[in-house]
């Protein structure tokens, strides 16, 4: 899970994850509450070139529609896409930006159950699931509950340091390892993400 306030570039991490998956020959699924054209426009703005495109579940421009008000059909569609492609022996990557939208429309309990089932199904198919969530939009206890669902949590934020504003990230949780509590500076430039050590 990638958490952070709007505008810090969470979705760009998802784009890179998809891009590297496509280059490696994995099946990549992008589930979004936006139109396909909007996501592609965003990718271009981040200078991420896609020779191949992922499979889409989007509100506009995709064969399979993303209807976030119908959780049952959404879950079925994602699971079906994952199961079919995992069955063909492909590694599967799923990226989604719908978590915050779902939490705005439904109770946290409902979404917790929805994602528990979805992630359990994905794990059975050995799929890797990357979800972005907007920090500041939800109650801290809701965020904490969502963190429990994922094996790893990355936190991206803007930090004010005197007259400077720095975009920093840290690994808040990573299953099987003790995350280092350090912050790293990051930026997306020249079509890539650059990470450097941060010193106050």
């Amino acid at each position, binding site marked *: 899970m990638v958490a952070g306030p709007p505008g810090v570039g969470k979705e760009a991490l998802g784009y890179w994850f998809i891009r590297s998956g496509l280059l490696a020959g994995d099946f990549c699924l992008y589930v979004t509450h936006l139109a396909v054209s909007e996501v592609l426009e965003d990718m271009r703005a981040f200078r991420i070139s896609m020779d191949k495109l992922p499979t889409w579940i989007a509100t506009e421009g995709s064969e399979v529609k993303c209807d976030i008000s119908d959780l049952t059909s959404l879950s079925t569609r994602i699971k079906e896409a994952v199961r079919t492609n995992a069955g063909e022996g492909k590694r599967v990557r799923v990226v989604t930006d719908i978590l915050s939208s779902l939490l705005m429309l439904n109770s946290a309990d409902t979404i917790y159950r929805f994602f528990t089932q979805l992630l359990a199904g994905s794990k059975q198919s050995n799929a890797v699931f990357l979800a972005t969530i907007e920090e500041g939009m939800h109650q801290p206890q809701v965020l904490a509950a969502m963190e429990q669902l994922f094996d790893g949590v990355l936190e991206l934020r*803007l930090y004010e340091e005197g007259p400077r504003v*720095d975009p920093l990230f840290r690994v808040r949780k990573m299953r099987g390892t003790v995350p280092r509590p*350090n*912050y790293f500076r990051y930026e997306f430039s020249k079509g890539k993400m650059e990470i450097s050590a*941060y010193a106050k």
Partner: protein
Amino acid sequence: MPSDYSILVFTILLYALGAVVVALYAYGAVWAFRIRNALMTPLYRSRAQWVGVVAVFFAILVSSNLLIRLTAPGDFYLSFLEYCIVDVAGIVTLAWIDTTMKMARRLDPLNRNTFKWRQLRILIWFFTFVTTFGSLFSVVWFRANFFSPAGTAGNFVSGSFGWVLLGFFALVLSYRRSRDPILKEHLKWFGLFLFVLFIVDTVLSREIDAFRIAGEVLLAVDAYFLYRGVKSLAPLSRVPLERSVEPPG
């Protein structure tokens, strides 16, 4: 008749207030560009940039207004320049509204096209440019003076700001619909900024000394609202000291 002493006090007060207003707008602009540089997503960067440009233009607008009023209020070319600055300030404010509306739609889980903005924006931009050029043309045609005590004598010189009012209503509707506290906070300060601006531009626009002082005070409040709008572009945190240094290796 006011004495020379009271005129002097009034002038000093007016210019001191003007300096505070310009400083506040400039401070807001600096923060807007700082945040813009730290943001990653193009749409958010674009919004921060427009907020910064708005702050810069209002700082220029207030300072040029005071300087021209002091030096050559009767000069037609300087008056025309002031009209141009006002119109550009209106256009950049509309650009800020436009990016904010785009963002509000993206952050809406149901992707609602509030106020039919996607379609309406094309018309608004078209009419903004038409009225801006029309108003500037009428300024030249009627040789209207921005600093004339008689005002514009009924000439059509409203320019781009009339369309900003329409954007204001769209923002209010977005505020009511949005469930995102970060966006709502920004919309609140942005709305207050526009509201005070309209008060200054309408109720307090008459050339009466008391109104001019009150106008400058309200502009200072307005610049503060803009600054708060800038700071609400993205939540800023502070790094805890013990976690800030990356050890070697």
